[in-house]
């Protein structure tokens, strides 16, 4: 059986994703559309929250992918640092803006949902605060990538930043929990989604989550392909200079 690492070869990766990307993309669109349409139009209104609750089908999957994208970047960074596979570094680079967008969607839909429910667009709730902090970490990571010219140096530095940043992101999460409980005891407005939901909501929500996962995979694959092509262009220019 072929080793998984073979896919870390850019050529092999390009060849595989040639057919894989369209498949994943179609699956992503179909699944997400199913989840969202089912969720928006074929679920009953909540007895307390009315139809506003339906934003959950966007909010929860986006928030989930915001965290998963960072975890994926962490794994890819580790793979790059340990095994020096270029595709891995480029995949981490491609995932960052997608994670940032997911975080933004999570925050935005949260605000839109929070306005009618809690009467405020924003609350310094630990969960919200953590996502805002995650947003900042994404910004820093992307900014560092864009500031460095040499691709290998950029990959190394951002990988180290991702590792160190992960530790501090987790610390920040606990700091946010501690901070809020410490100052505003009992003011937490957060409704833990999914805990008191029945299957009428859960089923479309899960479909939607899978859909968002597939969207993420498709976008990362597409982004990585772009990065590989950009890298190849750089290599070709370098080749010109060598002759």
């Amino acid at each position, binding site marked *: 059986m072929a080793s998984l690492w073979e896919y870390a070869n850019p*050529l092999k990766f390009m060849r595989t994703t040639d057919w894989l990307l369209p498949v994943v993309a179609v699956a992503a669109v179909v699944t997400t559309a199913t989840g969202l349409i089912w969720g928006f139009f074929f679920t009953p209104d909540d007895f307390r929250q009315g139809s506003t609750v339906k934003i959950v089908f966007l909010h929860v999957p986006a928030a989930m992918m915001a965290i998963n994208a960072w975890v994926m970047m962490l794994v890819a960074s580790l793979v790059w640092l340990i095994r020096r596979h270029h595709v891995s570094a480029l995949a981490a680079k491609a995932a960052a803006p997608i994670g940032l967008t997911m975080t933004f969607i999570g925050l935005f839909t949260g605000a839109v949902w929070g306005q009618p429910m809690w009467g405020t667009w924003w609350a310094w709730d630990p969960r919200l605060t953590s996502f805002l902090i995650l947003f900042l970490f994404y910004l820093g990571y992307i900014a560092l990538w864009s500031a460095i*010219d040499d691709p290998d140096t950029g990959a190394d530095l951002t990988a180290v930043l991702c590792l160190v940043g992960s530790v501090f992101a987790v610390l920040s999460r606990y700091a946010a929990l501690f901070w809020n409980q410490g100052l505003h005891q009992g003011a937490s407005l957060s409704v833990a989604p999914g805990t008191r939901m029945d299957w009428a909501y859960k089923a479309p929500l899960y479909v939607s989550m899978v859909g968002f996962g597939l969207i993420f995979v498709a976008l990362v694959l597409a982004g990585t392909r772009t990065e590989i092509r950009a890298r190849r262009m750089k290599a*070709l220019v*370098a080749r010109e*200079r*060598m002759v």
Partner: protein
Amino acid sequence: MQDEVLLRHFVTKGRILGLSVTNLACARGGIPLLEGVGFSLEAGQALVLRGPNGCGKTTLLRTIAGLQPAQAGDITCPADSIAYAAHADGLKTTLSVAENLSFWAAIYGTKGIEDALDKMNLRPLAGRAAQNLSAGQKRRLGLARLMVTGRPIWVLDEPTVSLDTVSVALFADVVRAHLAGGGMALIATHIDLGLPEVGVLDLTPFKASLDSTGSGHFDEAFL
């Protein structure tokens, strides 16, 4: 005195160790520059590297100094034996000449900057802040730093830039004394140092070619 230190550095188990480079390939910013570079230096020898601008002299020296990894090949030398001097002299402009030198002496754990001050003719400037030195004087201070490292192998990148003829001769004397004491020097330079006994290595034939960068190179799949 310094010569004795050098010799003790070198003679290990009755054998004189030097610098040996075999089949070295190096790259800058992912672009292969040199390959198959090989030479060796023994106590008392020096080698001058030549080649057109951008051929990879600086990269080669940085690789040998351990600042960047080699793409291929081996560099063998005794541990802690290389003193590297780059284009920039690493001088702190608000510190005096003596303070600058003493700092490097302390970092390398050697004693006495007096010898270096005398040999590079810096004695009269010892108390002057480095920002008030001329370019040539700064360069001399940068080279004096080499002498306080107490290391046998000097790796020098364009050491004579902004030196006048008198100072070049002074520098050549210092290198000669270093070699006579069992030291070694690897020098990238364009000018004639007036060291007739020194070997010359032209790097032009070692220019990396596309065909041979194929296998084993990082960018293999991108190139």
